[in-house]
């Protein structure tokens, strides 16, 4: 590894705290621009003026904005995101409770998306211009165009209401609720760890529809990128060499052409995983999936500002980390990056 590569890698890591600071500043400003007065939320509509003044002082709202920001930063460093009005728990506790469900959903979805998307992209590139290629192109363009909430609702209508082969909304049937003690917070995993196979199958069947809907969303992106990378790779001179050596088509395709795009693909997959967070917000709302997306939209409708800002900040942080990992994978694993 050359010195300049080390320096560039360090620079990309060093830029993270700065971006994170910007992120915190943005959420802080959004919070202060809110039309809802936090003092009235705490003291109530009919509180006498002296109580309002006292609460205002306690919250530090009488201080200048930069001082308020410093206080906010101090609280964040102590892991304090304030209390949620809706659940009356600290926001950090709520997020810790809701986040595993999102992680479960997004992880299953990205696995499905990779297993289907990557082979589709590879074969489409191999047979570029064929009918198969056109079908893949239309299918993936449709995936980029379909609103996730519409797809989710239609899937519920067809597979749950009409055909009856899929369970309804939620993470598990009501009858099974609370049967599995939370370990990781990911219900399917917890049930397996507990050896509670009834709950395992029930929770697993609830996972199918939302994860498929979410997977289609990122499969479209993964397929398109894989296809584009493969077309470029297949045009390389090393492919001609491999052909001249008389290697089989499968070997050329997977070993030589695909082997050369694997690193760039890792970057795309990390970005797709991050992108799933966004799809998860809507998918969770449609399927009443108790993840951070449902928490965020529920808090929004209740004007629960601490919860909204906390969830936004956590999602932003996860997004930032995944982006950094994608960047690092690209810089460290690909020998062609100077």
């Amino acid at each position, binding site marked *: 590894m050359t010195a300049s590569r080390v320096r560039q890698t360090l620079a990309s890591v060093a830029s993270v705290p700065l971006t994170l600071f910007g992120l915190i500043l943005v959420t802080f400003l959004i919070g202060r621009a*809110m039309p809802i007065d936090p003092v009235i939320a705490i003291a109530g509509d009919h509180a006498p003026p002296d109580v309002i003044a006292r609460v205002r002082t306690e919250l530090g709202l009488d201080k200048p904005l930069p001082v308020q920001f410093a206080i906010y930063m101090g609280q964040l460093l102590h892991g304090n995101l304030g209390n949620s009005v809706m659940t009356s728990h600290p926001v950090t506790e709520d997020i810790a409770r809701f986040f595993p469900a999102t992680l479960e959903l997004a992880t299953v979805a990205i696995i499905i998306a990779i297993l289907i998307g990557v082979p589709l992209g590879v074969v489409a590139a191999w047979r570029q211009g064929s009918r198969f290629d056109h079908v893949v192109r239309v299918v993936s363009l449709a995936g980029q165009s379909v609103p996730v909430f519409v797809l989710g609702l239609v899937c519920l209508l067809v597979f749950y209401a009409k055909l009856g082969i899929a369970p309804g909304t939620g993470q598990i049937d009501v009858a099974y609720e609370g049967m599995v003690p939370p370990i990781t917070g990911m219900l399917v995993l917890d049930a397996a760890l507990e050896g509670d196979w009834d709950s395992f199958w029930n929770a697993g069947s609830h996972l199918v529809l939302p994860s498929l809907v979410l997977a289609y969303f990122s499969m479209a992106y993964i397929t398109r990128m894989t296809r584009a990378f493969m077309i470029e790779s297949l045009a390389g001179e090393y492919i001609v060499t491999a052909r001249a050596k008389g290697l089989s088509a499968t070997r050329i395709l997977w070993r030589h052409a695909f082997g050369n795009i694997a690193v760039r693909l890792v970057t795309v997959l990390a970005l797709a995983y*991050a992108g799933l967070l966004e799809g998860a917000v809507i998918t969770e709302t449609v399927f009443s999936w108790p993840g951070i997306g449902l928490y965020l939209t529920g808090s929004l409708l209740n004007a629960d500002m601490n919860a909204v800002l906390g969830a936004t900040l956590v999602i932003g942080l996860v997004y930032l980390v995944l982006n950094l990992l994608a960047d690092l994978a690209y810089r460290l694993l690909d020998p062609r990056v100077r």
Partner: protein
Amino acid sequence: MTALSTYLSRDWLLSETPSSRTHAAWVRRYRGWLQFRGNGLAMVGLITVIVMIVASLAAPLLAFQDPSAQDLAGRLAPPSAAHWFGTDELGRDIYARILYGGRVTLGMVVAVVLLVAPIGLAVGCIAGYFGGIVDRALMRLTDVFLAFPRLVLALAFVAALKPGITSAVIAIALTAWPPYARLARAETLTVRNTDYIAAVRMTGARSGRIILRHIVPLCVSSVIVRVTLDMSGIILTAAALGFLGMGAQPPLPEWGTMIASSRAYILEQWWVPTIPGIAIFIASLAFNLLGDGMRDVLDPRQR
């Protein structure tokens, strides 16, 4: 004076030896159009987009009913000759609401693009042209906005402003400009040190003039491609905000809002929420197909 028919002839448009700069530009455009026309999917996209624009502009002529006229006796009616797409939960004609909803959606898209493209161009060109500390500061700002998933940031902004169509447009615009800034910066960096920019500078032109007259025009074609591809994302984000109750508010016939308010009827009267869903899908797919075809023509690096 040459007759107009000369200019419209194929030979003139495909001439190998253009007689003037304008002539050469038209030859290039015509060749691009021929290439675009050969792409069947792109043409489907273009025609759909044109039909959509015409249909929403002509909504008062095409709709037989007032989109907000309620008829509680005839609510949730299935599609019929009187109501092509049936009626919604308040007995309003869905066909009329889809047409008027197109105005809302396309209007939001246009508003977002008009806000975003200039901001992105300005930030990107200034950062690229001046370089150094200006570049670093502006790109750091861009990164902060890129560090959020778009919809989540838009949701937080709308919550801070107040749910509604104006807030939705502002929120989407605030989250949509960074890619344009990056694009414009990259384009600027490639031309910043060229001889003709040096020549313009030597004539005494000031930075503002150089950026506006000599750099921005070069970024326009890649920005147009990006805008077209972005349209579908903007449509989807606007619809998602509407669906989550943070975008256009009822009774405004916005497609996402229509789905949200009729969601409860999906099991019995499935067409009520499904038809606006199909409208969103078609609109977003059409822009994707169009943008894909335009990228093939306008963006030489993708060939």
